[in-house]
């Protein structure tokens, strides 16, 4: 266990070195958030809203998800695996007496922990000041939200891990990355709750593993759903774990050490 924690700590410390540069990102991210909020207000401002979503709820929806992006989505391409495959460092990483899947993920947790304090917190403060904060009223929302966020981060990590593993078979793993990006934009509900999507897209989005990243945690946070919103995230976390571990075994056998 210590080795995993240690790698996370090191990555955290490395990130802290660049905190000034990252603050610039935060301002940019906040600007994007405000653009999205302005669009929603332009659309929903005068009307009573649609279904459970009124203009204020949608503004908070966007703000919450803009914050979530930094812990569940904005992760390095393939969690650094493609780069390691390219340079050959992968052979050393796989040689370690550690579980590869767990090792890569825990290393990334260092970045995620950093992002939580140096990116999410400032962003949340800015959005809170301008848009207002939704403070969950029910006590039960807090543990549920924690679970939803953890599952969201884990599912995000698994996505990127799978892209990373694709580098074992193809040198074009960046197309997998682009594909994931496009699907994420359309089907995760980070700007538009998926139940508001036009006809076939709403159920496509429901059954794919993107909604658990944004849609479900946001519904729990805004208290539009209770524990039932954890069902899909739990299912997908389980499925993705199996897929990740299965493919890791295959990748391990596939690994060729190139000389030179």
């Amino acid at each position, binding site marked *: 266990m210590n080795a995993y924690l240690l790698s996370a700590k090191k990555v955290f410390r490395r990130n802290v070195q660049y905190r000034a540069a990252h603050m610039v990102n935060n301002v*940019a991210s906040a600007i994007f958030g405000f653009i999205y909020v302005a669009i929603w207000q332009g659309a929903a401002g005068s009307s009573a809203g649609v279904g459970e979503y009124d203009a204020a709820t949608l503004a908070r929806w966007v703000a919450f998800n803009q914050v979530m992006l930094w812990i569940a989505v904005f992760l390095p391409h393939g969690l650094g695996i493609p780069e390691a495959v390219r340079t050959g460092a992968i052979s050393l990483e796989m040689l370690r007496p550690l579980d590869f899947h767990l090792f890569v993920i825990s290393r990334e947790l260092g970045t995620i922990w950093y992002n939580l304090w140096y990116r999410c917190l400032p962003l949340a403060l800015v959005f809170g000041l301008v848009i207002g904060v939704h403070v969950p009223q029910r006590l039960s929302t807090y543990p549920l939200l924690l679970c939803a966020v953890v599952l969201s981060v884990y599912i995000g990590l698994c996505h990127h891990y799978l892209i990373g593993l694709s580098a074992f078979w193809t040198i074009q793993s960046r197309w997998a990355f682009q594909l994931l990006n496009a699907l994420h934009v359309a089907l995760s509900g980070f700007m538009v709750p998926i139940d*508001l999507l036009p006809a076939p897209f709403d159920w496509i989005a429901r059954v794919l593993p993107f909604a658990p990243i944004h849609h479900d945690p946001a519904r729990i946070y805004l208290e539009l759903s209770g524990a039932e919103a954890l069902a899909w995230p739990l299912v997908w976390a389980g499925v993705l774990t199996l897929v990740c571990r299965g493919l890791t075994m295959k990748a391990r056998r596939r690994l060729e050490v190139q000389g030179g």
Partner: protein
Amino acid sequence: MTAVVLYLRCVRAALRAKMQYKTDFVMGSLFYGMLTVADFVMLAAILTRFPSVAGWNVYEVGLLYGMSWIAMGLYRAFAPELHEFERYMVQGEFDVLLLRPWPTLLTLLGRNVDPARLGAAFQGAVILAISAKTLFETGTLDAFGVVYVAAASVVGTLIPLGLSLMTAAVGFWAVRIGELYTFMMYAPVTASQYPLTVYPRWLRALLTSVLPVGFINFVPVRYLLGKSGDPWVLWLSPLVAVGFCGLGYAFWRFGERHYQSTGS
């Protein structure tokens, strides 16, 4: 004139080089196109639930959206090296450009093209065409308007190009400019996909002055759709595009004179 011939020859060579990797091109066009569609699904979702964004219906916003994507797609397709200008500063590659006996910008732009980015422009053109057709049939947009928006989308490319030249020029002093693009280009261009009237007054003022993305689409389209504005904005918009790009180039030349190589 020789400069133009030379540039075209460079572009042809770059294109031939790019086409050696056909799968890359096909996949790239496909994915950039998909990303545009994904983006538009969100907008469509908003507009099927609410009749309008700040008084603009789905086809009217579609005009803005299509024009913005065409301008950005063309810029990304023909100026990939300018967009990656940080590399030239950080790694000292700019020195090589200075050795050529013609303008550095010409050499830079001629070095590479990214035809896959045309996928996004194409997708934008499809959305623009559908929107323009519907608005034409309902009589909101006349024939002149249809021709105007098509031409303005192409001329509009000069605005992202101008923004990029200014950002790159900052690189002559600041070297690291990757982050600056988010402020100078990504955020304003994203904002230009929607009617600027949804934004707070100060932001709208910014987007029609210092970062004039409003002139790609919003300012002329608002007049063409009979919402507000005067006929002279139809002249003003291309003039702003050309003028702004010229200003960007002037700033670039100014920066170039202050260039200090990083050495190797």
